[in-house]
């Protein structure tokens, strides 16, 4: 890939005959430039995806509720995200008098930075990760757990009651659901025998069903089905999406931690939430649905399969939001601690016994 990008650059600058002079200048810092190119290649589609996710959400929920959804800006309302973006950009960022100014402005940054940084280990296709970390899963767990600070600091620094309630709810909810998420991943690690995300995808490309041509049957979702559900539902709770959106809970605490924010600072929280949604969809696809692998053996593997799987889960996010009423707070805690954690604690030894038995399918 690096070679073909270089060749394209060389072709372009050779049109003016400047390539050799330019390359002599650029060569010492090329590795840094190459990494920056890769970061841009990940982040620009991600942010576009976030923008169109908001449009898609409003459309889908509109259709589900017998409405049309946004249809004024551009054809079918397709330019709506940009209109919203420009509106948020030009609005003033208000700073409440009693707020802690530094932390108030730091909070949106702390929300968006982990949501973007965590994408560095995602393998989009074979060998297609920015950083092919051997401890990739640990990195994902560590960075996603940092995301909660944005919400907590926002709630505290606003020096206002509703944001504070939102922050308290968020802290309790995130810490609770991280446990079931981590335990669900333990099963995946056991059967893949690796912490590397690419290796976890490759480990799903083995098995009896794969040899029969139905590759999707040998992905982790089937033998680890309860963990698949636990992970996805915990992921919804981690991103504070409906029906677990008590952190924002517009009908209870206005908008939770975001009450006092306006303009771009507010937009940062929004971007972070949607980037996290897309990330959870990507993680479910990688851990349980074989990432870039094709579901049947007569079609080639590739990045399009990865996007298709993510799309299914992103649609499910919106579907759930349009379908279910919000959980009550004690019900959220009960689901996390009394249902998911015990299910995981049973399934981990069960997987261990399965792997040690003669019926082990992961050899």
């Amino acid at each position: 890939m690096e070679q073909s990008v270089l060749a394209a650059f060389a072709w372009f600058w050779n049109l003016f005959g400047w390539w050799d002079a330019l390359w002599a200048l650029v060569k010492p810092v090329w590795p840094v430039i190459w990494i920056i190119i890769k970061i841009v290649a990940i982040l620009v589609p991600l942010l576009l995806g976030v923008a169109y996710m908001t449009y898609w959400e409003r459309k889908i929920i509109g259709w589900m509720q017998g409405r049309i959804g946004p249809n004024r800006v551009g054809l079918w309302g397709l330019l709506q995200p940009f209109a919203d973006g420009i509106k948020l950009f030009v609005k003033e960022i208000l700073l409440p008098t009693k707020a802690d100014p530094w932390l108030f402005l730091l909070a949106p940054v702390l929300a968006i930075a982990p949501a973007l940084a965590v994408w560095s280990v995602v393998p989009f296709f074979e060998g297609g990760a920015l950083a092919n970390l051997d401890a990739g899963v640990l990195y994902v767990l560590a960075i996603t757990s940092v995301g909660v600070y944005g919400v907590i600091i926002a709630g505290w620094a606003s020096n206002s009651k509703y944001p504070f309630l939102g922050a308290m709810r968020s802290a309790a909810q995130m810490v609770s659901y991280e446990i079931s998420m981590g335990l669900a991943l333990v099963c995946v690690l056991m059967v893949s025998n690796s912490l590397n995300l690419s290796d976890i995808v490759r480990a799903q490309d083995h098995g009896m069903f794969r040899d029969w041509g139905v590759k999707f049957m040998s992905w982790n979702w089937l033998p680890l089905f309860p963990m698949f559900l636990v992970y996805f539902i915990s992921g919804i709770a981690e991103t504070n999406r409906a029906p677990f959106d008590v952190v924002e809970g517009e009908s209870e605490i206005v908008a939770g931690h975001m009450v006092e924010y306006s303009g771009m600072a507010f937009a940062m929280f929004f971007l972070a939430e949607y980037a996290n949604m897309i990330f959870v969809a990507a993680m479910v696809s990688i851990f349980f649905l074989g990432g870039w692998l094709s579901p049947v053996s007569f079609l080639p593997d590739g990045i399009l399969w990865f996007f298709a799987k993510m799309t299914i889960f992103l649609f499910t996010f919106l579907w759930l939001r349009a379908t279910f009423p919000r959980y009550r707070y004690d019900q959220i805690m009960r689901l996390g601690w009394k249902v998911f954690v015990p299910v995981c604690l049973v399934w981990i030894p069960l997987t261990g016994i399965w792997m040690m038995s003669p019926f082990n399918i992961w050899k």
Partner: protein
Amino acid sequence: MDLNSFAFYVLATVMIVAALRVITARNPAHAVLFLVLAFFNAGGLWLLLQAEFLAIALIMVYVGAVMVLFLFVVMMLDIDIKRLRRGFWSNMPLAATLGLLLLAEMALVLSTDYFGATAFPDYVQPADYSNTKELGRLLFTDYVYPFELASIILLVAIIVAVVLTLRHRSDVKRLDPAAQIAVKHTDRLRIIQMPAEKEAD
């Protein structure tokens, strides 16, 4: 100065400043956040030592869980800084003695031959060396009994903490989720047939 030592000095400086701010910050919430910053830099230092598992575990456990709960508690405190500072000078001699004692002990330990710059030979790890795998192997083979013992002690501590703070209140209405789910519409709704108008007498 190569990149590694540059990174070390940056991380170490930020860490020391953050650690100092933890004890000098007036607002406890700021102090907790500086502690988080210090943890991040400690994680970075461990990464420089190629201990990636410990580095990421530090951030996952301390930053991701422990400090969140810390912040949770500290934010809810209603702190009067004047009242907090009142006992400062009366406690100063004891605190200073303890601090000096700790400093002396650390200096004694760190200045011995076991910790000197020459105590550890430069160890170059093979390219496919996995810190995580090696730690797991050691914990579950050579040190399996101490490891299991430590985990049982932790489990007991968790159960004890729950038992000590558990109060059964009898004056609150409790919900039984199983009963809620098992409810049928006939339990809640009774359809009564009655004439629309009263018959004239």
